[in-house]
């Protein structure tokens, strides 16, 4: 088996960059990483593929992403103010699909959140569809498959 390590490195660098923006709440820069029709999806059922016709925890188009960021940055959300921070580790990256128009990357994430002094951990599979752009990639789709998506979660006032 041959692995295209050059492509894998480029994708990894991009996904780590995104992760760093989110952990450091550089949300405006994060918004600029997306394609116009890109979707940020956190399903309630990880076996589901028809996200538009099922209930998700989040299914954000560009408008909803902008509003989600505005809510977190506004100072109006008391729960957002109680998140002391997140640290996410991303590893186990694999290119699942490579076409002229896009690549699909799957990776593992563990996000740790500190809120009111309590650490909460969110293990998840991430699936990205990335489109090549002039300076790297744009995100065309990001699906966050939380391991406990169908369980009783804590509320989330940050971005996976």
């Amino acid at each position, binding site marked *: 088996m041959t692995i295209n390590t050059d492509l894998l490195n480029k994708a990894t660098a991009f996904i780590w960059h995104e992760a760093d923006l989110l952990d450091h709440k550089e949300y405006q820069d994060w918004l600029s990483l997306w394609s116009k029709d890109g979707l940020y999806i*956190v399903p*309630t*059922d990880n076996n589901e593929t028809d996200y*538009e*016709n*099922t*209930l*998700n*925890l*989040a*299914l954000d188009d560009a408008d*909803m992403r902008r*509003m*989600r960021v*505005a*809510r977190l940055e*506004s100072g*109006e*959300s*008391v*729960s*957002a103010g*109680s998140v002391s921070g997140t640290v996410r580790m991303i590893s186990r990256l694999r290119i699942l699909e490579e076409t002229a128009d896009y690549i699909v990357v799957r990776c593992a994430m563990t996000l740790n959140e500190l809120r*009111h002094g309590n650490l909460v951990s969110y293990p998840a599979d991430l699936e990205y569809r990335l489109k090549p752009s002039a300076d790297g990639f744009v995100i065309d789709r990001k699906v966050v498959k939380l391991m406990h998506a*169908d*369980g*009783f*979660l*804590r*509320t*989330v*006032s940050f971005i996976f």
Partner: protein
Amino acid sequence: MSELIELKNISQKAADMVEEGRVHKALYSDPEIFEEELDKVFQNTWIYIGHESEVPDAGSFKTAFVGRHPVILSRDRKKNLHVLLNRCRHRGATVCEGRKGKTKAFTCPYHGWGYGLDGSLRAIPKAEEYEGVLDKNDLPLDSLRHESYQGLVFATFKDDIEPLEDFLGGAKKWIDLFVKQGGGYPLKVLGEHRFNFPGNWKIQLENTTDAYHFPIIHKSFISSLDDATADIFDFLDGDGFVEDLGHGHSVMVMIPDLVDLEDDLDQPIPERFEDLAQALRDEGQDEEQVKRLVRAAHGTGFNLNLFPNVSCSMAFFRVLRPVSAEVTEIQHVALGGEGAPASFNRKRMRLHEHFQGPMGFGTPDDGEAWERVQKGSMAGKDGWILVNRGMENLHKSPDGNVAGAVCSETGMRGAYQKYKQMMAAEGEK
């Protein structure tokens, strides 16, 4: 020694901790009171366990809880519903796991005892050692009495309880109004959000008819709305009201214009629903049906709180489960129309995702407030929670019930008076 006994007595007098306009903060955290609540409230009344649309076919099942008891809601081959305790009659393992599904039987994984969808014990591996010891007919899964109203299924441990419709009483009218948001189609569960919070179940119960908190804690949600929609949610100075419906039930009408979704069908299409209206037109729906579906898509302008564990809140069911004195699990159940246009159900789900659930723009801030109530309730040796807002500004509703302003705490007082009555009763054991 006498002091110890006295303290013990105090902790068991939960009913005395409920006064007309205030409740003692120990009701949120005392583990003995919590145990008493499971016994006197949750095992002693009708508990909502699901909607019939969640078990549509022969063989469909969903799992749920009545208080602490895991139960199965199943539909047998003749399409009759059953509510069964999820416990093998042999050694007690659960016979059904997962949220929902379809099956031909419930089989215990431990020794293979097999039960029918109606709970009857059908198969025992190596049955010869039971000859003369037991009879399969004597050991079905325990079943609970259950009844439905408008598709909402309730179960109870109290076999001699009043019929469900009597229990619902004045709430029935509001359930009838609530189900109109199917837009002419039968109401259907589209999915659910699940989350928990470190706090007592009654904090959530109070919240459902608490309009007072909305513009404060949900400011970031309101900021995300267009101006016209934000105006609709600016209801504290409007003509809304809270009505005590009896039996602990209450309704809070925030948006009187949206009480009956089959009225006023000539209203213009709001900006927030233009995309839905266009999608419906593109599908070939005539303008009358477009307006009907758009109006239904709003959800109702009221929250109906049914004591103790479910509410019909604007556009969703809120189901609560007390896990311990200081932990509560919540389900936000999204609703649409069975057979309704896909664009209608999609819009309903997108609106649900916008506010509800662990990643909505509303729920996390509610959760934050409830967590703080629980934490704050530990401060001080003695202290009370006030539920007396609007107590001197009451009127009689057209249905003859006590009602107060939309941001009064009339609904909470109704729920706590029912709670007090149930907690004051002598236990059966």
